[in-house]
C-alpha cells in the first residue's frame, strides 16, 4: 500500500495527545492475531492433515454389500425350477414429489411466452401455468398408480404427504418399473434387486421351498443348499453424507461371486405328471392329503416327489405350515401290507421257509390273547398266495418263524427307523422299535406293517432292494451318475423270486389289478392301513398305499403312492392309489424311454399299412 512509504513523514507531525503508538500497538496486535490464524491453518491443513482426514474417512466412508446372484435350481435335464431374475423396487419421497419443480414450471412458462410472441405473462396466466403443472403432476401420479396396480385413491394420500420415504412397489417386473421411470416424476426412485421365481409353481413347490425377502432359503432345498446357492456377496466402498445417504462410490472391494447352479435328480416332466395324477386322485377320493415318490431303481435318485395339498411359492399368500410341508419326506405313516414282501424275502433268504411251503390261514390266527385277522378266509396259501391275497395270517406265521433279531435287522437294513439321508430339512426317520422289546404279537403286527412307521420316501427306498436284485440304494435329491453307497440286503435270487410273486398282485385276481401298465410287467404291493387315533385303530379312516416297480423284468422305476383318508367311498390301496401308480408309471416309462417287456398287452396302433406293434424292432 502506498501509505507505508509515507510513514516517516507522518511521524514528523505529532500533535498534542497523539496516540499513534497505541494505534500501532493495536494494529500490530491484530496482525499478529491474523498470523496466529495462518499458523493454525498450516497446523491443521498440512501437519495434522493425515489424522484429520482419517477421522473424516471414518465418518464418511462406509462399506456396503453388493448382493450376489443366487444360483439356479434345475431339474436333471437343466430345466429351471428356481431362478433369480432382476427386479426393481419403486420408492417415493413424497416431500420431493410435492415440491414444485421450478425448472419445469419455467419451461412451461417459456413455452407459453413463445406462443404469444414473447409477451410477458400476466399474473393470471402464471397462475394458469401453475395450475396446468399441478394438474399434469396429479395426472402422472394417477398414471403411475395405475401402472403399479395401486388404487387411485392413493394419489390424494401421496400428494398430501410430507414424509421423506415410502415404498410404492417392491420387487416388480423391470418393464413396469421402466414405465414408471418414463413418467419422470420428481422424488420417484427405482432400485435394482433380485427376486426368486419358481417357473413350475406349486408342482415342485414342496421340494424347492422358497426364500424370504432377503433371499435366504426358508424351506425345502432352498434352505438345505443355502450356502451352495447363495454365492458370496461382494462389497464396495462408498461415501455417505450426514444423512447416511450414499453420494458416491469409491471402489469395489470385492466382486460378488454368483451362487452355483443346483442340479436336482428330479425330472420335471415326471414331477408334473406325478403332481397332476396325485391331485386328481386326492380330489376324486376327497382325501385329506397325498404323497407320491418316483425313484430311479438303479441309482436311488428321486425323479419326482409331489404332495397334496400344495402351495405356490411365487405368491406365498395364506401360507400355512399345513400347505408347504413336504409330506413325502417329512410325514410318517404305518406302511401296512406294503412291507409284506420284505418279510417273505427275509424268511426265504434266512431259510426259515421252504420254497413251496404252504400256510394254513383260516382267516384268523390267535397269538396269546391277541388275534391276527384276514379280510376273508383264504384257506391254504403258498408264499405267492400270501402276497397276492395280502394275508396277514400268512406273513405273521412267517414272521414268527424268524428270530426277532434277524427280522429286526432286515427292517433296519432296509432303512426303517433310519434317516434316509436325502438332505431335505426336517426329513423324517420313521420309527422301528428295538427287537429286545418285541413280544410275539409285535413281531406279527410288524410283519403286516403296523407298529413301525416310515415316510413315503423311506418306503420307496426300501423297494430298491427288491427292484435292484437285492441291493438297497441310498437316496439322492441331486443328480448323480451312480450310487456309491448301496448295500446288499437280499440275495439276487430271492429278490427276483419275490418280484415275481409281486407281479401276481397286479393280476386280475390280485389286490391291485388297477396298477397294471400296458406293455410292461409290473410288480407291486398294496397297503390299506387303518389310521391310528387316540382310541386305537380306526375302522373308518385309512391310508391307501401302493408301492411298486416296472418293468418287473429289469425294474427301472419305483413309485410309492400314499393317499391319506380317502373318503369318497373307495379306500383300498388297490383302488385308490394303484390307478395313480399306473398312470404315472406309464408316463414315466415313456419319458424315460424304457423298453416294454410284455408286448402282448401293448396298445395297438393303427397305421395306413395295417396293424403294427410299436417298438417291434426292439
Amino acid at each position: 500500500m502506498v501509505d507505508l512509504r509515507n510513514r516517516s513523514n507522518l511521524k514528523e507531525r505529532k500533535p498534542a495527545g497523539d496516540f499513534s503508538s497505541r494505534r500501532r500497538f493495536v494494529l500490530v496486535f491484530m496482525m499478529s492475531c491474523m498470523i496466529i490464524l495462518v499458523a493454525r491453518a498450516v497446523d491443521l491443513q498440512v501437519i495434522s492433515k493425515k489424522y484429520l482426514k482419517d477421522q473424516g474417512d471414518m465418518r464418511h466412508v462406509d462399506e456396503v454389500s453388493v448382493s450376489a446372484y443366487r444360483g439356479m435350481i434345475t431339474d436333471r435335464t437343466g430345466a429351471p425350477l428356481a431362478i433369480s431374475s432382476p427386479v426393481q423396487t419403486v420408492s417415493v419421497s413424497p416431500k420431493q414429489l410435492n415440491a414444485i419443480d421450478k425448472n419445469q414450471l419455467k419451461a412451461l412458462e417459456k413455452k407459453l411466452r413463445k406462443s404469444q410472441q414473447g409477451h410477458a405473462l400476466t399474473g393470471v396466466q402464471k397462475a394458469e401455468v401453475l395450475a396446468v403443472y399441478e394438474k399434469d403432476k396429479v395426472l402422472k401420479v394417477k398414471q403411475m398408480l395405475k401402472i403399479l396396480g395401486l388404487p387411485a385413491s392413493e394419489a390424494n394420500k401421496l400428494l398430501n404427504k410430507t414424509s421423506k420415504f415410502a415404498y410404492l412397489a417392491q420387487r416388480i417386473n423391470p418393464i413396469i418399473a421402466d414405465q414408471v421411470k418414463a413418467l419422470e416424476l420428481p422424488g420417484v426412485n427405482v432400485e435394482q434387486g433380485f427376486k426368486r421365481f419358481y417357473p413350475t409353481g406349486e408342482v415342485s413347490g414342496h421340494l424347492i421351498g422358497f426364500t424370504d425377502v432377503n433371499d435366504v432359503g426358508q424351506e425345502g432345498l432352498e434352505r438345505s443348499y443355502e450356502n451352495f446357492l447363495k454365492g458370496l456377496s461382494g462389497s464396495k466402498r462408498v461415501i455417505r453424507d450426514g444423512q447416511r445417504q450414499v453420494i458416491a462410490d469409491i471402489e469395489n472391494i470385492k466382486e460378488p461371486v454368483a451362487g452355483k447352479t443346483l442340479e436336482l435328480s428330479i425330472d420335471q416332466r415326471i414331477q408334473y405328471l406325478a403332481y397332476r395324477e396325485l391331485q386328481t386322485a386326492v380330489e376324486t377320493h376327497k382325501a385329506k392329503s397325498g404323497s407320491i415318490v418316483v425313484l430311479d431303481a438303479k441309482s436311488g435318485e428321486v425323479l419326482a416327489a409331489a404332495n397334496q395339498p400344495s402351495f405356490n411359492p411365487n405368491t406365498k399368500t395364506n401360507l400355512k405350515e399345513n400347505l408347504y410341508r413336504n409330506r413325502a419326506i417329512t410325514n410318517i405313516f404305518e406302511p401296512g401290507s406294503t412291507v409284506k414282501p420284505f418279510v417273505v424275502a427275509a424268511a426265504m433268504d434266512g431259510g426259515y421257509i421252504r420254497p413251496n411251503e404252504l400256510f394254513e390261514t383260516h382267516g384268523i390266527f390267535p397269538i396269546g390273547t391277541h388275534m391276527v385277522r384276514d379280510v376273508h378266509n383264504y384257506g391254504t396259501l403258498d408264499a405267492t398266495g400270501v402276497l397276492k391275497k395280502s394275508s396277514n395270517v400268512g406273513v405273521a406265521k412267517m414272521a414268527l418263524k424268524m428270530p426277532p433279531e434277524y427280522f429286526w435287522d432286515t427292517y433296519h437294513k432296509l432303512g426303517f427307523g433310519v434317516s434316509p439321508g436325502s438332505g431335505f430339512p426336517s426329513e423324517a426317520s420313521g420309527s422301528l422299535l428295538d427287537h429286545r422289546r418285541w413280544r410275539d404279537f409285535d413281531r406279527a403286527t410288524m410283519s403286516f406293517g403296523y407298529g413301525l412307521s416310515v415316510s413315503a420316501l423311506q418306503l420307496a427306498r426300501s423297494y430298491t432292494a427288491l427292484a435292484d436284485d437285492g441291493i438297497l440304494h441310498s437316496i439322492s435329491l441331486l443328480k448323480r451318475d451312480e450310487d456309491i453307497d448301496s448295500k446288499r440286503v437280499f440275495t439276487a435270487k430271492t429278490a427276483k423270486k419275490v418280484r415275481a410273486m409281486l407281479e401276481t398282485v397286479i393280476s386280475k385276481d390280485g389286490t391291485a389289478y388297477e396298477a397294471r401298465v400296458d406293455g410292461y410287467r409290473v410288480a407291486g404291493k398294496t397297503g390299506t392301513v387303518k389310521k391310528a387315533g387316540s382310541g386305537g385303530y380306526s375302522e373308518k379312516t385309512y391310508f391307501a398305499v401302493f408301492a411298486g416297480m416296472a418293468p418287473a423284468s429289469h425294474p427301472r422305476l419305483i413309485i410309492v403312492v400314499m393317499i391319506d383318508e380317502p373318503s369318497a367311498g373307495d379306500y383300498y390301496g388297490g383302488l385308490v392309489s394303484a390307478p395313480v401308480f399306473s398312470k404315472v408309471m406309464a408316463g414315466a416309462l415313456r419319458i424315460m424311454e424304457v423298453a416294454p417287456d410284455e408286448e402282448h398287452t401293448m396298445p395297438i396302433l393303427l397305421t395306413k399299412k395295417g396293424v403294427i406293434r410299436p417298438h417291434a424292432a426292439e
Partner: protein
Amino acid sequence: MKTPHKSQFHFDTTLVLICLALLTIGYIMVVSSSLHLGLEMSGSVFSYPLKQLAHICIGVCVGAWLATIPMHKWETAGPWLFIAGLFLLVIVLIPGLGVKVNGSVRWLSLGGLRIQVSEIVKIFAVVYIAGYVTRHQESVRVSAYGIVKPLALFALACVLLLLEPDFGSSVVIIVIAMGVMFLGGARLSQFVILLSFLATLAALLVYFAPYRMQRITSFRDPWADPLNSGFQLVQALISFGRGEWLGVGLGNGIQKLFYLPEAHTDFLFSVIAEELGLLGVVVVIGLFAMLVWRIFKIAEAAEKAGQVFSALMAYGLGIWFGFQAFVNMGVNMGILPTKGLTLPFMSYGGGSMISMCCAIALLFRIYSEVYEISANTPKERSRWVNA
C-alpha cells in the same frame, strides 16, 4: 454517487476491491454450501443463494443511502441511536415479537426478512462510543468516571444481549468500546483495572451459565466428546484437514453435506478450508488483514485531518471487523470457544450482511470527507492519498 452539498463522492478504491473480493468469495461459498440445504428445506437449490443475493442488494442500497449522510450528523445522533439500539434489544425479548432459533431469541422479522438485532446494535455502539470519546476527550483521558459512564450503558446492552442469549455480540461491543477508548487516550492504569474487572465478570458469566462452560471445554478438546459437545468443532477440523494445500475443489466438499452444522453461516470458513484448501484460507485471512489495515489507515488520515469523531468511528469499525473475523475464524479452527459470530461479508445471513454493508458505507463516507479536506489543503494531498 452525488451528495446534496458535496460536488463529488471520493471512493477508496483499495477498500472497494477488498470488500468486493470478500463478498465474491463469500457469496460463491454460500452458494456451494447451501445448495443441498435449500433442496432439503424448501425444495429448491436456489432458495439460499437468491435470499443471500437479496441481502447483499439491500445492504448495498441501505449503505449507499447512509453514505450520503455527513459524519457530523452521526456524531450528534449517537446517543439517540444507542437508546434506539437498547429499545430494539428490549423489543426482541418481548414474546411474540422476537423470533426464536436454536434456543436464542435474536431475530426480528421484517416483511419476510429476518434481522439479527445485535448486528444493528453493534453499529450504533460504535457510533455512540466514538461520539462519547470525542465529546469527553478530557474526562476519558484523566478520570475513571469518564470510562465507567459509557461502559455502564454498554453493560446494560450486554445484559440485554445475554438475555437473548448472545454472548458473542456482547463480547464484540465491549471490545469495540474498550478499543475505541484505548485509542482515544484512556489511561492505561484504569484499563488494567477495568480489564481485570471484565475478566472476573466473564468468569462469573461462564460459571453461571453451564452451556458456556460446555462450549469452552468442548473447544479445548473436541475429540473427547466428538458426538455431542465437540461435534461441530470436530466436523470443522476435519474440513480443514481434508482441504490440505489446495482443497478438494469448489463444490466437492463432503463435510457441508449434513455433517457440519451451520456450514453456510458461522462455519462457512470451514467449507472454504475444505474446498479451497490452505490457499483459500490464507487468501481470506489476508483479505481481512488488509481490510483492518486499510481501515486503520483511513482512521489515521482522519486523525491527521483533525476529524476526531471520524477517526474513532473508523477505529471502532476496524476493531469490529477485525475482532469478529478473527473470532469466527478462530472458532472454526478450534482456538477459540464457539461464539455464534458470523464471518463479515461472507456468512449467510440478512442482518449481518446488511449491517456490514452499512458499516463499510460509513467508512467510505469518512474516506470521502477526509479526502475532500486533504484535497482542499494541497500540501496534505500527496501525503496520504495517491490513488
